[in-house]
């Protein structure tokens, strides 16, 4: 079947298809979670930690309770299983983050108590009048400082890193012998990279509205990116049978990975359960920008052994993912990251050590390309640097080292369906770059010798 024949049979691929939700968007008729009205709705405002690290000794609601419109306040005592189940639900564990803080706060902005009131103003007012008794303790904000002996310990496990499979303090990938290869290399190229945490800043902030239904179920209107994930998490946290919840969503005013943490639904559902009234929990814009999870910052060290002809024969990678005060999805990310941290290149000797580190900052989470974007960013700068050191064209360095079908990846998986070479060839053509003939003729498929 030729490409043309195939094209003619296709109804969607290769055709311009209007967006299913396009008309709703341009008419302003698309229904976001907040575009619904319910009688007797309560507003939830969260009281948050003003310090990065401390012992939470007490909470005084007496002034808050006097605010006209105050209805109730929820603390950790009200939450049946006071722990988010993010890691458990993706087959990793253990979980560590409380829905509401118990006796410690580990980052500035951590949720401590939920205020429920008749109006937004009353909720804001009451929340501002809650008095917190917190004994501030030393905090640590840098990933490598957090791993040094004597650093303030953040996690209940007693260490500032995620423990993999109950025994390992980081993810390791080994192929060949990097130290021996470094001895043989013509050049050693070393770099240190530091990325910043990046806020997704969706135009619509995170939020949900929970409505108790007459049949005893709860309808949760939410802009989460992960409806079932959210439902499962809420069910376990609240000891609520899954069939008691009906999650309605799929319409999000921007997520980009920032609405996968399933944070707001459990407490809002709990509030609806306790009060018997609809509850709205909406992040304010300052909350969205400061306390919702950012893309995690990463510190990456690359040390490469390179030959005069441009071949990278050894790559040693040491990375530290800044998970912030809690895990969220980062331990899973670091595993994925470790597998990809050497890049799509055929390197015979690779050592990767990837750490998931805690600091007293907002817990970080997913954002487009989760776990691989930052290492790709580092690797490609490193490749350009190598090209400069060796005196070769940046395209050449990549073609010389590109992986192909049949190559061995650092984590001991054989490469299948590689397309780096073909993508680079197409990119060069689109950019008007005339590649040398030998690169134009390269292929991801290894030569098959016929006997």
């Amino acid at each position, binding site marked *: 079947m030729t490409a043309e024949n195939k094209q003619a049979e296709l109804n969607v691929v290769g055709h311009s298809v209007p967006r299913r939700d396009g008309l709703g968007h*341009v008419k*302003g*008729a698309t229904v976001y979670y907040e575009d619904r009205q319910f009688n007797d709705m309560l507003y939830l405002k969260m009281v948050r930690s003003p310090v990065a690290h401390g012992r939470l000794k007490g909470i005084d609601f007496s002034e808050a309770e006097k605010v006209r419109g105050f209805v109730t306040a929820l603390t950790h005592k009200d939450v049946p299983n006071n722990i988010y189940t993010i890691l458990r639900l993706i087959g990793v564990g253990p979980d560590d983050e409380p829905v509401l803080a118990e006796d410690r706060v580990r980052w500035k902005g951590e949720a401590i108590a939920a205020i429920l009131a008749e109006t937004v103003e009353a909720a804001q007012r009451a929340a501002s009048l809650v008095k917190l008794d917190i004994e501030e303790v030393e905090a640590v904000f840098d990933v490598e400082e957090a791993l040094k002996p004597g650093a303030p310990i953040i996690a209940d496990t007693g260490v500032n890193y995620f423990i993999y499979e109950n025994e390992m303090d980081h993810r390791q990938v080994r192929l060949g012998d990097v130290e021996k290869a470094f001895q043989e290399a013509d050049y050693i190229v070393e770099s240190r990279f530091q990325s910043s945490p990046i806020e997704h800043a969706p*135009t*619509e902030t995170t939020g949900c509205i929970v409505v108790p239904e007459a049949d005893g179920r709860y309808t949760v209107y939410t802009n989460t990116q992960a409806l079932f994930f959210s439902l499962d998490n809420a069910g376990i946290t609240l000891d609520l049978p899954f069939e008691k919840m009906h999650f309605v969503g799929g319409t999000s005013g921007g997520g980009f990975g920032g609405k996968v943490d399933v944070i707001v639904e459990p407490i809002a559902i709990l509030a609806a359960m306790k009060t018997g009234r609809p509850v709205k929990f909406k992040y304010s*814009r300052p909350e969205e920008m400061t306390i919702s999870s950012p893309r995690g910052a990463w510190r990456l060290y690359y040390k490469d052994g390179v030959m005069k002809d441009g071949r990278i024969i050894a790559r040693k990678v040491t990375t530290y993912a800044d998970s912030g005060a809690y895990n969220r999805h980062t331990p899973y990310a670091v595993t994925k990251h470790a597998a990809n941290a050497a890049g799509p290149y055929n390197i015979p000797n690779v050592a990767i050590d990837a750490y998931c580190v805690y600091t007293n900052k907002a817990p970080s989470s997913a954002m487009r390309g989760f776990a691989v974007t930052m290492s790709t960013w580092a690797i490609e700068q490193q490749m350009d640097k190598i090209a400069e050191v060796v005196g070769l064209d940046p395209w050449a360095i990549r073609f010389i080292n590109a992986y192909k079908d049949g190559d061995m990846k650092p984590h001991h998986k054989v490469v299948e369906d590689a397309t780096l070479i073909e993508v680079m060839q197409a990119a060069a053509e689109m950019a008007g770059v005339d590649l040398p003939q030998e690169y134009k003729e390269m292929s991801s498929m290894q030569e098959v010798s016929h006997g």
Partner: protein
Amino acid sequence: MAAEIVSFMLNGRETVVVTNPLETLQSVLRDRLGYMATKSGCSQGGCGSCTVLVNGEPMVSCLLPAKDIEGQEVTTLEGLTKSGAGEIHPIQQAFYDNFAMQCGYCTPGMIMVSKALIDRAQRAGTHPTHDEIAEAISGNVCRCTGYQSIFEAISDASHRISGHEWSGGRDIGGKTK
């Protein structure tokens, strides 16, 4: 508490509401009247998703006390869609045809500013130039599209309104006659 009665023209219709003191037009539109097209992205005037037209001029409704627009004409995105036949405004059609949205949250504010921009340019006998579009939408944050499709949609819309052919892509600016 001194509640207020505010009467104004909303999308061509005489409208009366009872509001709290200092209640914003955004709150009146969404919470009192159920007109949900006008969004609420920041409450600080910085994202533009709450943009409406007051006497044809863009304003951010989250900072606008409803009492201030007593007797004035307010237009929201709902006002662009003709009822009955469900006909939509050429600007809405151009946004749809040019994929000038993804999540859709900035779209209402974006379209309202576009309407004011195109009206102003048409009065001067021109299509909005690239720089005019850039300036006009600089108060409307879009986190999804990268804005290029919005530039094209606005140019396309301006051409449709003056009955011209739009040659697509970078065909931005020029005279309407």
